[in-house]
């Protein structure tokens, strides 16, 4: 009886923690990816501003204006 109920207890807590950790992992990975993309965009912007000024600035202005 006790051994069996311990199995149930173990199963329940394992399920909860596995699911929660998996979700957290997924969230943090997605956030990291988004931060990376943001960096990429930023460096591209900097690059463009350095090479050809006029159209890039216009694009940059539209870019930041479009952000919510």
């Amino acid at each position, binding site marked *: *009886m*006790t051994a*069996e*109920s*311990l199995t*149930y*207890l173990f*199963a*329940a*807590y394992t*399920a*909860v923690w596995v*699911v*929660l950790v998996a*979700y*957290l992992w997924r*969230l*943090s990975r*997605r*956030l990291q990816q*988004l*931060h990376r*993309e*943001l960096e990429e*965009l930023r460096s*591209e912007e900097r690059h463009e501003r350095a090479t050809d000024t006029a159209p890039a600035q216009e*694009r940059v202005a*539209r*870019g*930041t*204006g*479009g*952000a*919510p």
Partner: protein
Amino acid sequence: MQIGPQTVVSRSLVPLLAVCSAASMLLTLWLIFVYVPTDRVQGVVQRIFYVHVPLAMMTFLAFGVTAVASAAYLWSRNPKYDHCAHASAEVGLLFCSLVLITGPIWAKPIWGTWWTWDARLTTTLILWLIYAGYLMLRSLTMHSEQGARYAAVLGIVGALDIPIINRSVYWWRTIHPAVLVTREGGTGLTDPRMQLTLLCSVLAFFFLFAWLLWLRYRQAVLEARMTALWAAQRIPR
């Protein structure tokens, strides 16, 4: 991008919430496995109760947040409410799934069956179906103003339907001879140590919910901003 006051708050809030939920969760685990006495009738399995019930409470809180944020979005058209509703629905569905997993594991040794069509179980299952549909609608209308409005309407209708569903499945079972008379709230928990453990656990899961909600919310905000930026730059991805 520029660093506004919002960003500063979010940067300090995330570690704070993470620390709070980690600390309270560790304390709760200690309370559950070391401190609290074993239930005389149900035995060790009763300890599942201390995660099952807080998870269920946070599920309802999450769907409540979705409904309120949906109404706020329709009223103000501020996309941040839409992100909040989306984030809350997703975390709520996650918690609801965990409720539906831990419930049968607890029920099997105590009631002798994995599942009964009891009012609370049925309501939770239907809730899960409604919000799974909600998230499916969201995934079909990614990041559009139109999709945000649709989701908000569904979020409100779903939340208003919950009390009616609960009432109907409750009657449904009580007219039939009830298989189980004992309700989870009614059995035991007269011991103050059990009450303390439950209270702590509710607090811990509240912090966990707030933390996950905030992370998911940040993700939604960032995703929307990125989509807008890519679109403005017209760079093919």
